[in-house]
């Protein structure tokens, strides 16, 4: 599908960004410090806890910029007439405006500006791959090589807003009387819910698990995204009047058709990529071999790191191998280390350059003593007499011709097989879309890989009034791309609802 992720700004948005650019306060700020001076300021590093200190607990690694550091970082922004950053952002935050508000010290206004486009700024400020999005397109990066720390500033303003307790009941437009059902309380679903509630619609989120957040709660560990931040975002949605129905599995507890009969007029399906992939190699079902989803869910959602205070256990592992090179693999391996593994290994079939994980995560993992084994794939897991994994057989690879993704395809090196002792394996090679909703929703068109087919301009599915976005459409992408889909869908849903009379009126 073709999302709006890499395209240029729409004419109306470009005009809005330009209008902000031409305001007097912006002109004054630009005049106050010449570009040359701004370019001399070095990027403020993200303060973080030392690897030795953080490597054994689940407290957050990054500490966040101080107000002084944030203002200094904001001064680095050249306030370009033609900013690249906004088009690099999947949810189209007016980045120059919020950054310049930080420079002026108007942190609350900056946070409000971010919130106009992003319902989960404290989350995105922490987990977005800014280096391939807004910061990649930063003109300062093109000029001096080091982009403005946009992500760090986004995190700063949203943390500042939360710590100030910006709560209270938001001012909402009069209710439209329309009812919307959102399936899945992940990043996409929470974004759609926030946008539509702000437009005056009655929104209910149906969530299969017992905590809201989707991948943000079961997948991303506490040391990268503290749960308190999610709780605050959920509270924000509740203050907007969004209703949460937890432990409700749409498709089974009630189908989309059932909910239509209950008066829901529009649907957004953001059920995620909840079906882990395995390599289908011998020994993959041995005890001690987990999918990353299971491993992360046990630790993050079920708090197995606090076992036996919490009832859900997880096998700690002495020699842990995590298969894969993405962010999920990095999260898993850093957890294994924190749970006491003496050796925690990343086994990745390509080389470092092809790793899909964020640079910061790779860097943090290295600092924490994770061992990286590139150009290696497991071919078989070997079990002991109790069916528990004790070793893995591997094969070395070399890079051949580029494949469909443009990355060089790994090919086996003959005679390079070897065996490594392991007692914990986490398979983090991606996920497929969860089949529950496609299976139980007649008429919903599904693509080859089980993803829901949508019209990229509106995120509308083949069923009227039913929209979808995030991993259930993309198959496995990022939080921010899911949120970009959600923004597109929310606009289309709002338009659709406004064109018809409210139910019962």
């Amino acid at each position, binding site marked *: 599908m073709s999302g709006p992720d890499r395209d240029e700004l729409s004419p109306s948005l470009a005009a809005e960004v330009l209008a902000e650019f031409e305001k007097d306060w912006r002109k004054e700020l630009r005049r106050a410090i010449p570009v040359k001076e701004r370019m001399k300021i070095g990027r403020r590093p993200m303060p973080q806890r030392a690897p030795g200190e953080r490597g054994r607990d689940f407290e957050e690694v990054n500490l966040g910029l101080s107000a002084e550091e944030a203002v200094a970082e904001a001064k680095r922004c050249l306030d370009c007439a033609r900013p690249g950053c906004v088009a690099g952002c999947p949810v189209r935050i007016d980045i120059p405006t919020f950054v310049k508000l930080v420079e002026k010290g108007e942190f609350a206004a900056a946070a409000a500006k971010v919130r106009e486009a992003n319902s989960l700024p404290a989350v995105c400020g922490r987990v977005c791959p800014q280096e391939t999005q807004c910061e990649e397109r930063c003109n300062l990066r093109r000029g001096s090589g080091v982009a403005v720390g946009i992500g760090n500033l986004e995190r700063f303003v949203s943390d500042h807003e939360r710590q100030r307790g910006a709560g209270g009941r938001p001012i909402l437009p009069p209710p439209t009387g329309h009812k919307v059902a959102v399936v899945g309380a992940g990043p996409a679903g929470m974004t759609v819910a926030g946008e539509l509630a702000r437009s005056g619609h009655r929104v209910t989120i149906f969530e299969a698990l017992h905590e809201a957040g989707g991948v943000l709660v079961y997948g991303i560990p506490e040391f990268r995204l503290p749960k308190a931040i999610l709780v605050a975002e959920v509270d924000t949605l509740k203050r907007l009047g969004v209703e949460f129905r937890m432990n409700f599995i749409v498709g089974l507890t*009630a189908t989309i058709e059932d909910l239509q009969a209950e008066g829901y007029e529009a649907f957004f399906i953001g059920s995620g990529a909840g079906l882990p992939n395995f390599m289908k190699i011998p020994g993959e079902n041995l005890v001690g071999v987990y999918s990353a989803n299971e491993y992360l869910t046990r630790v993050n959602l*079920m708090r197995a790191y606090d076992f036996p205070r919490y009832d859900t256990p997880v096998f700690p592992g002495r020699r842990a191998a995590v298969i894969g090179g993405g962010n999920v693999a990095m999260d898993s391996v850093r957890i294994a280390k924190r749970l006491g593994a003496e050796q925690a290994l990343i086994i990745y079939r390509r080389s470092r350059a092809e790793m899909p994980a964020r640079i910061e995560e790779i860097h943090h993992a290295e600092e924490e003593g994770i061992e990286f084994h590139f150009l290696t794939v497991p071919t078989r897991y070997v079990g002991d007499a109790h069916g528990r994994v004790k070793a893995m057989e591997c094969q070395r690879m070399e890079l051949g011709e580029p494949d469909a993704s443009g990355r060089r395809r790994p090919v086996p090196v003959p005679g390079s097989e070897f065996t490594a002792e392991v007692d914990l394996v986490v398979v983090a090679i991606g996920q497929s879309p969860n089949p529950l909703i496609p299976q139980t929703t007649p008429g919903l068109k599904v693509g080859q890989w089980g993803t829901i087919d949508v019209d990229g301009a509106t995120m509308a599915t083949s069923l009227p009034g039913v929209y979808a976005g995030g991993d259930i459409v993309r198959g496995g992408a990022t939080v921010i791309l899911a949120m970009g889909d959600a923004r597109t869908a929310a606009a289309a849903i709002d338009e659709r609802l406004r064109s018809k009379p409210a139910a019962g009126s």
Partner: protein
Amino acid sequence: MPRIVRRERLVPNIHLIEVEAPEIARKARPGQFVIVMPDARGERIPLTIADWDRERGTVTAVFMVVGTTTRKLALLEPGEAVPIFAGPLGRPSKIERAGTVLCAGGCFGIAAIHPLVRAFKEAGNRVLVLVDVKADYLLYWRERFEALADELVISSRDGLTGGTDFVPRHVRDILGRETVDRVVAVGCTYFMSSVAEATRPAGVKTTVSLNPIMVDGTGMCGACRVTVDGEARFACVDGPDFDGHKIDWAELYARRKSFFDDEIKSLCAWEEERFP
């Protein structure tokens, strides 16, 4: 949060909970399960749905007390809430008019076959019921099955009611004296594998309802994967019913015991906290 309407000890160590869950009651079909978590620090476990009442809006599950979660569930009183009671999960059992159907239930699985017996009967089958208990005093729901089934065979291992033989002998006896077209078995892994092995020589189609370790129960984690006919399947979304003759039972046994030591540790920690 869903409230407990009734909690009853059926026999020593086997308890019933009836929970207010109108949506699940509306949708439940034979063979499906719920995911239950007894309190905020609890673990999510699957329980087969034993009965439901659409008018009352309640769902009933029967479980045996083995670990921390089931201990906690067995202490709940009517009016108390459980944080998670989610479902109905899994694919419903395939109910068809097969002719003669043998429904075999062991232990907590005796309750789980109840909706199956009812459904197979309603579908026009001759339904034989085999229930297996470790001892005479552990038998429950006898009247229910006597009322529903065409024939009830009780296998008890203390010899007071049904002889000293274990499950396979009873299954072979039944298959020897009449033509059975389908067998369904629900109970512990040992019970289900015993039934499946007993029907294998005669080649009678045997469906088992697996209850491996699960976390989310919706396909997300893959903890419940089992090898069926050489292929990894997820019990939660592909099952829980599978062909008993095609399951890698040894693997399933090992996976069921994944956390054996931790289960003991958890129970000890809970007992120390609860009964200081």
